[in-house]
C-alpha cells in the first residue's frame, strides 16, 4: 500500500505542476498575472514630495500639495508624446475627464512643443500638467515606463498603480470601483 502511494507521488507532482502552469497561462491571458510586472513600492504610502514646472508657460508648478486634502480621488498619469501605448489609453482618459474625474498629467522625458502638439491632436484630459524632463520625479514614484497611472485618495495616499495603458477593461474593472470606494 505504502509503495503504491509512493508510485503515485510523481503523478501527483506532475498534476500539481500542470495546474500551476494552467493558472499562470490563464492569468497571462486575462492580464491578471504579469511576470514582468514590477509591483509598486508606493502603495499605501503618501506620494513623495516633488515640485515640477508646468507645461504651460506662466502656470504655477505642480507640487505634492495638489494631492492633499482633496474633495475626490485623483488620477496621476505619467505619459509622453513619443509613447505609443499613451495614444491607446488616451480615449479612456478623455472619458474620465468628461465625467469630472481630476487627472493630473506628468509629461515624462518629452519636448514641451511635442507634448502640446499631442494634446492638440488628441484632446487634453489633464486638469494640471507638469513636465519631468530629467525623469527624476518619475524615479521617486517608482515609474519604470510610460504610460503609468496612480490613483491617489483624498488624503494623498497611493491606492493603486497601473503600469501600461488604461484600456476600457482597466477603466471599468479597476478605476471605476476604486473611484467609488475612495469617493
Amino acid at each position, binding site marked *: 500500500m505504502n509503495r503504491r502511494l509512493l508510485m503515485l507521488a510523481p503523478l501527483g507532482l506532475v498534476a500539481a505542476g500542470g495546474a500551476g502552469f494552467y493558472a499562470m497561462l490563464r492569468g497571462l491571458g486575462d492580464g491578471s498575472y504579469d511576470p*514582468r510586472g514590477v509591483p509598486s513600492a508606493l502603495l499605501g504610502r503618501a506620494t513623495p514630495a516633488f515640485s515640477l514646472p508646468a507645461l504651460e508657460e506662466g502656470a504655477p508648478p505642480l507640487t505634492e500639495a495638489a494631492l492633499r486634502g482633496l474633495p475626490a480621488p485623483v488620477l496621476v498619469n505619467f505619459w509622453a508624446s513619443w509613447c505609443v501605448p499613451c495614444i491607446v489609453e488616451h480615449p479612456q482618459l478623455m472619458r474620465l475627464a468628461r465625467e469630472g474625474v481630476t487627472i493630473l498629467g506628468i509629461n515624462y522625458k518629452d519636448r514641451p512643443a511635442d507634448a502640446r502638439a499631442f494634446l492638440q491632436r488628441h484632446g487634453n484630459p489633464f486638469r494640471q500638467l507638469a513636465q519631468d524632463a530629467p525623469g527624476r520625479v518619475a*524615479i521617486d514614484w517608482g515609474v519604470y515606463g510610460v504610460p503609468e497611472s496612480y490613483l491617489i485618495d483624498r488624503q494623498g495616499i497611493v491606492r493603486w498603480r497601473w503600469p501600461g495603458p488604461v484600456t476600457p477593461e482597466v477603466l471599468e474593472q479597476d478605476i471605476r470601483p476604486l473611484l467609488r470606494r475612495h469617493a
Partner: protein
Amino acid sequence: MRRTLSALALALVLASGLSGAARAVGLPSEMLRDPAQEARAREIGRELRCLVCQNQSIEDSEADLARDLRRIVRERVAMGESDRQVMDYVHDRYGDFVLLRPPVTWATALLWGMPVLAVGGGALAILLVRRRRGAVPEAPPLSEAERARLAALEDEAGR
C-alpha cells in the same frame, strides 16, 4: 550537421563579442573620477535589476532608465553615502523587485530553499535506494543435495 555546428559556434562567438561590447558603462562621461568610488558604484549597480530589461543589472543595460539609475547611484556614492544607503534609496522606490538578490521572506522562501530541497531530496533518494539494495538478503549457501544436482547439470552441459 557540421554546417549547423559551425553556425552555432559563430553565433556563440558573435554573442559573446556583442555582450562584451554592450557593457553599458564604458562611457567615460558616466564614470566617477575617483576609481575607488567608481568601483563601488559598479558593485552596487551589479546588484540592481534594470526594470526595463529585467534580466540585466543596471550596469549592463542600455535602457534609459538604467542609465538614470546608474547616474543616481554614482551621485549618491560621490555624496559619501554607504553602499547600504544607496541600495536603500533605490529599494525604497522600486521595492524588492529591483534587487537581483531578493531578501529572504516568506514569499521568497521557496526560491532560496530550492537548492537545499533539491540536494536534500536527492540525498534522501540515494539513501533509500541504497538501503533497499542492502536489504536484499544474501543467498543462503547451497545444501548438499543442491550441490550434487548442480554438479550433475554441469556434467551434462559439459558433455
